Structure formats: structure tokens, C-alpha cells
């Protein structure tokens, strides 16, 4: 039967297109890092991250900020000569990190993701304070931004006072979600 998977295989198992997405075919050419607009802000470049995954350096991979800094622009994916879907790999590592709760608390990314998802699951619509219509056109830009920033902080703490719009068939919508994620409530 199947041998115990390496970290690199664990990541492959998380990918939808793991067949068309052979991490092992990476030739370390650096095209991804050269393309990436965020590379200079990452602890490890995309090339190095792929290399580290292939070398099963699990702790190092999970400890770096690279996958949280990925902007999902797919530029690396579009250019990789080995046809590795690097942007999807970034998502797979994010998922791994959330499921295993390995991310560090001072990263805003994970909390923001979770807050965002929760808002949608509860209302059917999203509500990023930065895009909050009520603030935008009634104030000066400085206040808008301060307000939006503050709003986010509030929202992350679950204290956002302004509610987003809701869809009409919200009850059906929530039941629909529970058929996919079998947690909570239920008829």
C-alpha cells in the first residue's frame, strides 16, 4: 500500500490539478522569481519555495511569508517552462497552513481570509471595509483610508458596526453550504 507521503507529496495531494502540476519537474530556472512582482518582499522567492517543497523542508516552508505574500497574479504560472501552476501551489500551502494551524499570529493574511469567508457564509455577500461604500464618497481620502483601516481592525475583532447586504434566499444558501461543509446548525 501507499508509502508514507513526503511533504512535497502532501502538497501535491492538496492540488486540484496535481496531475498536470508536477512540482518535481521544476528545473529551478528562476523565471517565476524574475516575474513575480512581490518577490522582493518575500522571505523566500517563488523559485526557492518550490525548491524547498521538493526538498521536503516542511518547517522552513511553513515558516516563511512567501505564500501569504503571493498576490495570485498568475504571472509565474503563465511563464513557467515546466508548466507548474505556482500560484495554485501557493494556495495549497495556505490551505495546509490553515488546516494545520501553523501560521504565525502576527500575519494579517490568515485572519483576514477567515473573516472574509465568514462574512460571506453568513450573508451571501462580501463586505471588505476597504470597499465600504458608505465611507468612500462622503469623506476626504485621508479619513476614508484611516476609516477603512480602522474598520478592518474592527471587523477582525468582530465589531464592525455596519452590516453588509444580505441575499434574499439566505436560509437556502446556508443549508447549501452545510451540504459542503458538514458543520453547524442544520435542519
Amino acid at each position, binding site marked *: 500500500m501507499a508509502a508514507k507521503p513526503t511533504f512535497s507529496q502532501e502538497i501535491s495531494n492538496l492540488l*486540484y490539478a496535481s496531475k498536470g502540476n508536477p512540482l518535481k519537474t521544476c528545473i529551478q530556472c528562476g523565471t517565476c522569481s524574475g516575474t513575480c*512582482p*512581490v518577490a522582493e*518582499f518575500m522571505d523566500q522567492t517563488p523559485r526557492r519555495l518550490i525548491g524547498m517543497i521538493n526538498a521536503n523542508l516542511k518547517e522552513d516552508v511553513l515558516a516563511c511569508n512567501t505564500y*501569504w*505574500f503571493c*498576490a*495570485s*497574479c*498568475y*504571472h509565474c*504560472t*503563465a511563464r513557467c517552462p515546466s508548466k507548474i*501552476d505556482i*500560484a495554485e501551489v501557493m*494556495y495549497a500551502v*495556505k*490551505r495546509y497552513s*490553515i488546516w494545520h494551524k501553523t501560521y504565525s499570529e502576527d*500575519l*494579517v*493574511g*490568515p485572519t*483576514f*481570509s*477567515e473573516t*472574509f*469567508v465568514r462574512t*460571506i457564509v453568513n450573508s*451571501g*455577500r*462580501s*463586505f*471588505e471595509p*476597504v*470597499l*465600504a*461604500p*458608505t465611507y*468612500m*464618497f462622503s469623506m476626504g*481620502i*485621508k479619513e*476614508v*483610508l484611516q476609516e477603512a483601516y480602522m474598520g*478592518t481592525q474592527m471587523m477582525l475583532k468582530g465589531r464592525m458596526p455596519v452590516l453588509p*447586504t444580505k*441575499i*434574499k*434566499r439566505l436560509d*437556502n*444558501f446556508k*443549508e*447549501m*453550504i452545510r*451540504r*459542503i*461543509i458538514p458543520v453547524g446548525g442544520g435542519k
Partner: protein
Amino acid sequence: MKKFAYFPGCSLEKIALSYNTSSVETAKILGVELQELEDWNCCGATTYFHVDQLLAYTLVARNLAIAEKEGLDLVAPCSACYKNAYFTNKYIKEEPDLAEHINYALEEDDLQFNGNIDVHHIMDIFVNEVGMDEIKEKVTKPLEGLRVAPYYGCQIVRPRKNGEEIENPQFFEELVSAMGADPADFPERLRCCSASLIMTSRRAALDMVRVILQNAVDSEADVIATACPLCQVNLECYQPQVNDEFGTDYKMPVIYFTQLLGLALGMSKKKLGIGKELVSAAPIFGEF
């Protein structure tokens, strides 16, 4: 009149209202009816995929199913929504187990999705459904002398959808020319605007915005045209932050391509929502 199911997405409800109205109104003039999708839900944009792709596909599938019920293809003006809808549609068509499972969830809302529709970005409707010839014919007030930087951003071209040109697309430039304006040579037109990082990695995001703004300035553009509410907000609303951070002095108007198109088609500024910008476009539009 050709008709599509129009999925505005969350940002177009208020923050990008001018994109919403300008899309619907310009389309109408060009013989396309955009009928808003009934009781649509947020598609999750990219943030969902961090956590649960099955959930993300299900949310998108609900919208696809509502469009299919109407017998209409789905059109999204937001690039992130478009990418989500495009790939969910593709994956559901490719994988029967996934389709079965998602349809089981959709039953809760008396819906089902059989994979019988296509998904388009609104740009695609103007470029391919209407076409340049038709647009040129309908232009009554060509935007002569206006230098427009066509900002594609990421997700209308990447990841590749239908084998289109992703390294050197030209359709946005052609559209700008069809309006009678002058497309600027704008090398960073495909570079990511960093919208997905602006709340979480502020410094990286502002630096990315700076690069694009500087490139627009260097290419002597009067205005940046966008095809996505996330790009628009990111490139426009954070200019003061960028200026603070980097000691620059950007005042580059960022306008939806549908607003420019509307002007060229002779519509009023008010109807197109011009005047709601944070970085005023008044100096360049004075003459139109």
C-alpha cells in the same frame, strides 16, 4: 437584442457603481442587454480558495445555475469574479463527481447546474460580441487627443482561458483606438495591481501600485483605463498613501473603460458616473 445574465459582484453594488451603470448603459447603446442576475451571491473572489475550494466552487455554481435557469451566458465586469466563474464552470464540466456533489448542495436552493452556459468578462462582450467595427460606427464623440494607458491587470488574461495571447494582448489597445483615443505604450499594463494584498501586506502593495503609476506617467498617459473594480480602487484610492510613503506626487486619474467608451458614444458624464473619482478626472475631460 443580445442578452446576457449580468453578475455585478459585490464591489459594483456601491463602491464601483459607476462601472456598473456605465457597463449597462454602454452595452445597451451597442445592442446588448445586461440583465442583472436574480439574487446573486458573492463569489468569494480569490480569498476563498485559501480555505476551501469545494465551497468556493459551490458559491460560484449557484450563480451559474441561476444564469443557466434563465438560459443566458454569464457576464462579469470584475476580473476576479470572472476568473472564478470561468474556472468553476470549466472544472464542473470536466469532473462529473464534482458536478454531482455541487448539484447536491444546490438542491437546497432548488437549483441545478448542467454546465450549459459560457462565462465572459465584460470586455469580451465589447471586443468580440459587439466588435470594433460596430463600436467605431457608433462613436459620435471620438476622444481625440486623449492618451489612455490600457491597464489589463491579471485575470482577464491570466491564467490562460481559451488559448488567447497572454504575453502581448492587443484587444484593449484596439478598443481604445476604436474610441478615437490614443493608446499609450504602457509596458506595465499586465503587472499585478496588488489589490489582494492591500489589506494584508500594505507596504508591498503600495510599492506595486507605485510601479504601475510611474509607468503610466512615463508613458505620458492622461488617464489609466481599467476593466476591474479591484484594480480601479487600488490604483486610484491609494495614490495619497503611495505619495506619503514614497515622497511622490501622483495625481493620475483612473477610469473604467466603459466610462471612456460611454463618452465616445456621446453619453453624459453624469450618466457615466464621471465626477465620483477621488483623483479628479476633470482636467482631462474638460473638453469632452
